[in-house]
């Protein structure tokens, strides 16, 4: 009997410690965001108050109104949506056929071509911003939204993920479709894309999150506010307002954080699950 209770006690203690660890970690991780959010909702003097004040004493929405006057955040938001949507649509348009080709067709040089395609994901665009700037200048695309889209269209990562997925689709399905007279495009539309949907969703989500974040490339390629995106808009705002009060800066920061964060909290299951699907490294 005592043995059993010791066992039980150990189990409870283990469970307690685990939850304690998770809780502490969770709090440490979210406190910065909560604190910034709370600051953004306070009048500017509140920053200097004693204590840690995570919960605002009196709410001040004015900061959010004020940042829209100080910088065209609404234009940044629209530009970000245009750029991010443009990237993912074009990515899917070119990646799906390529992934299909690599996964289901036989041709000379397939392996080496596949290596060339996926090696791209290991060479970050950040590394080749300098020559890419020249390419854009040659194409006359400096300071355009198009220039923020094009370099990301060919995606080694997307090609890799979708190829893995298309490979796993049973041959029998494809064969029977072929007997029914389906060509490659029918097979793509009616078998590959519907069955690959979880991976396509995962890739789309990752792409949106990554490109919502883009900073270096827009910094180099944009010159005027009318084409800038949120991340770089914030960067410029910070430089222009340095010395301004913190509640104001945090309102700007939260303005670019919130859209994705809210979208995530609403669709948490979909997000986490599809991210888990996509890392199907195990094949």
């Amino acid at each position, binding site marked *: 009997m005592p043995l059993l209770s010791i066992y039980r006690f150990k189990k409870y203690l283990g469970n307690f410690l685990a939850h304690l660890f998770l809780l502490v970690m969770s709090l440490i991780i979210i406190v910065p965001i909560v604190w910034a959010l709370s600051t953004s909702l306070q009048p500017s003097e509140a920053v200097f108050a004693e204590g840690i004040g995570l919960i605002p004493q009196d709410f001040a929405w004015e900061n959010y109104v004020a940042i829209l006057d100080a910088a065209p955040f609404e234009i940044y938001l629209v530009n970000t949506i245009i750029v991010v949507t443009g990237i993912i649509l074009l990515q899917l348009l070119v990646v799906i*056929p390529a992934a299909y080709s690599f996964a289901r067709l036989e041709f000379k040089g397939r392996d080496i071509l596949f290596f060339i395609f996926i090696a791209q994901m290991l060479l970050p665009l950040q590394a080749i911003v300098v020559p890419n700037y020249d390419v854009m200048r040659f194409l006359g695309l400096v300071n355009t939204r198009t220039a923020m889209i094009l370099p990301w269209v060919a995606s080694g990562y997307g090609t890799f993920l979708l190829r893995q997925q298309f490979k796993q689709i049973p041959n029998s399905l494809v064969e029977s479709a072929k007997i029914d007279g389906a060509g490659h495009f029918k097979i793509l539309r009616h078998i590959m894309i519907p069955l690959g949907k979880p991976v396509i969703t995962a890739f789309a989500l990752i792409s949106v999150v990554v490109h919502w974040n883009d900073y270096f490339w827009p910094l180099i390629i944009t010159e005027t506010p009318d084409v800038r995106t949120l991340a770089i808009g914030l960067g410029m705002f910070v430089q222009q307002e340095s010395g301004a009060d913190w509640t104001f800066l945090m309102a700007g920061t939260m303005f*670019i954080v919130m859209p994705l964060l809210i979208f995530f909290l609403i669709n948490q299951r979909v997000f986490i699950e599809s991210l888990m699907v996509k890392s199907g490294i195990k094949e």
Partner: protein
Amino acid sequence: MFSILQAGIYKIKDSDYIKNIFPYLLLLPSGIFLVTFTYYPIFRSIYLSLFDWDLWTPEPEFVGLGNYQELLNDALFLRVIRNNLIYLIGTIPIVIVLSLLLAIIINERTRFREFYEAAAFSPTLVPMAAAAMLWVFIYNPDIGILNRVLNMFGIPGTAWINSSRTALPSLMVVMIWKNIGYYMVLFLAGLQSVDPNLYESAKINGANWFQRHWHVTLPQITPTLLFVIIVNIIQSFRVFDIVHIMTQGGPANSTNVLVYYIYQQTFRFWNMGLGNTLTAIMAIVLFITIVIIMRFLKKLVHYD
């Protein structure tokens, strides 16, 4: 009879044609983008790295390996490389241990799981520029929350990103904070493929929690682990945003990293020759790293 044969031959020819050209046609759209915006720029950079090209020499002037030589004698370049390596070695183990620990512990229970996952994952969705801004505020010596909390425990705060001693570690903390949630999800995915029966038999053999995970979990998730390490290495080479917003490479270049140095040389000092040389070096170093890792990966897959 004859016409059927003819038709048959024609058909074979047609499908041969399709067989030969069609796969490449499907690769073409992607290929055009790939060549224009990845491979052509890289080779152009490698080519231009052999030229002097700056404000004083507006027309590129061939200097052979002169730029490379210049960099090897450039104390700042060596400093930058050192910073990148410190960053890489300092963040990878911490990120991996924390994210794996989170994944394992979350995976073992269902209560509050969604809350923990959401909390750990949320920084992933904070754009790097915003994360940087947020942490500038946190590290603020006078009003930042970090020094306030430390003061509560009687520990004197410090200047964090304004001191060359603490600046780089401070940036590393931001990246760790931002990335553990993402890797946690990757590890959670990897953990789904571990056979639960293995834990049971380990338990019967008297293995404690740590031993179970060391001997069962770790070997089973090696592919995920490797993937996370690769992604981490690439990420640590391309760090730029936080440096640009938080420290501009300072104080005294203590946070200057490769991509930031490229940016400075090219778009601040308009030294295209050096900018292209640095780009070429980065591409070549990454390529070599990739090949080594791929070799390693192949070996690993063979053992499976």
